[in-house]
């Protein structure tokens, strides 16, 4: 049963990745594209965090509860893998930084064109082939 739930969770996450990729590629609204991108990034992060999880009971966070050597062996037996968490924190911050920049670009596009629909922006892009101003 636990293996089934575990497998379902992982498959659901993979399905989410597929759906968010669809959203990034096919949604005409720039804000929705950005939302799909954040979903994509967060799902990837969640998948990596799950890599470090242990399907045991009880399971502890990777913070030493007491500063004594006696508690250490008990702690190592129950604690989850800290490295994926550390990697994911880095990835979360990076993802957030990229999202900030993309959001700023979307705001700027909205100011310039008055719309966030990619089709309308495409129509109004200065036609470079006609000799756009530098």
């Amino acid at each position: 049963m636990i293996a089934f739930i575990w497998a379902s969770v992982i498959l659901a996450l993979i399905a989410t990745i597929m759906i968010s990729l669809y959203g990034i590629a096919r949604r005409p609204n720039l804000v929705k594209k950005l939302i799909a991108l954040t979903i994509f990034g967060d799902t990837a992060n969640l998948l990596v965090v799950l890599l470090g999880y242990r399907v045991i009971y009880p399971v502890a966070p990777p913070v030493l509860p007491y500063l004594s050597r006696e508690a250490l062996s008990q702690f190592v037996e129950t604690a989850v893998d800290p490295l994926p968490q550390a990697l994911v924190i880095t990835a979360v911050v990076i993802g957030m930084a990229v999202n900030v920049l993309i959001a700023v670009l979307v705001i700027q596009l909205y100011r310039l064109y008055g719309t966030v629909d990619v089709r309308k922006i495409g129509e109004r892009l200065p036609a470079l082939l006609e000799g756009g101003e530098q």
Partner: protein
Amino acid sequence: MDVVGLTPVIPIVFAFALPLFSIIVRGDRKIIQAYALVGTGLTLISVFKLFQLVYSSDKPLVYTFGKWVAPIGIIYEVDRLSALIALVTAGLMFLIAIYSYRYLEHDEGLEWYYTLYLGLEAGLLGVLLTGDAFNLFVMIEVTSIAAYALVAFYRDRGDSVFAGFKYALIGAVGTTMYFLALGMFYGAFGTVNFADLSAKVHGSDFPVTGSPVGNVVIASGVALALATWAFLIKAAIVPNHFWLPEAHPAAPSPISAVLSGLVVNVGVYALIRFLYTVYGGSLTPELAHVVGVLSTIVIILGAISALFGALMMNVQRDVKRLIAYSTIMHMGYLFMAVGLGTQLGLEAALFHIVNHAIAKALLFLAAGVFIHAVGSRNVEDLAGLGKKMPIATFSLAVATLSLVGIPPFNVFFSKLLLFNALMEKSFALAMVIVISSVIALVAYMRTFYVVWLGKPRENVKLREPMSMSLICLVLALAVIIIGLTAPLIIDKLITPAATQTLDYQNYIGVILELAKNLR
């Protein structure tokens, strides 16, 4: 030894301090320019020192950050391949920083420009020096985010902002793919260090991490596929190329030069690390099958890119867009060579990276001189300017002739190497190079004809901006000199680098030596 670790730290610390510095000097452009030159110059010195060190030692140089050796900490492991590309990168970044000042004389925000520029340089150097797959991810992001912002530098022009947006969106998808691949690597191998991964792929254990914990073949297949996809996006190979022809022209010309000459190399370099260092040499049959399939895909996509880029060059009227398509073509060549997996292929790829970086940067910079003068990217608007700006025209001629592969210039020799390397595999692949070069030649000649012999539209009075043209001249001379001394360079620089990269046991051994005392 510190120079290995310090190299990417120097530009990023300069970038950290620049906002504060520009507030102190009240945004004085000259002082900011001097500051940027000091920053890139110091980096160049550091990289040159690194280059000398690496070429005078038999083994890759290792820097252990925070005294932690792999696999518990991050290490920088620099072999000759990295050092050579790093030298080209730092040199070009320094020259382009000189060029930028004049090019951006009408634009505000020089301090922001240089902050991003220094950040970009730190990212590029970090990608080249790192010996850790996750650190590679972080450095790719440093490079990318600076690149996204620089593409959108002309913030009041819709096409720039939109190109920046598109680039950022696609780039973010790519890097997240790579992050997922790293998750797979950690899940199966229990490590993200290149040397450690390589040791496990080749069936030996490593201190601390022991042997692989998961199914190596499946994990390798999925992770390599995801990672390769990410690198294909970063290098703009055909199904993922669509951002490049918009993003590279939209940036200011010096940034176009950096993007086309250096930033796209990130994808190629990372793929070389994976295919040659981690999955190089003799593998178990299953893994060899996985890598073989992947190489074939890479070669085919590369060939398609080369032909596609060459064809698209002929229908462009925007000068920078034309050059951008040429970048796609050359990236196609590089991926074809990387996919071969042979010593000759690696040599060809490495020499072509170097030559293409210099020649493509020169081409963008020379075109930038004209664009700066008339304020338009349209080929027809540049008509007849050639005679008024002799140095820039000379540089443009050298760059175009070099890029299509006319003999005394540098790219000819790397194309020759590519041709030979591909001939080992099949004749058809080798012909791709010849055919695409001929098609590209037509496109370049058309542009060049217009610029040199076309009738000027209006009688504009122009003077050649000396600081910009002189940089072009320096690079043009570099193109010629590399061309003339090509056999020597191949013999002294390229072949040793390729040999060292192929020797993955040496790469692992250096780290193993350090890590053997770990429990």
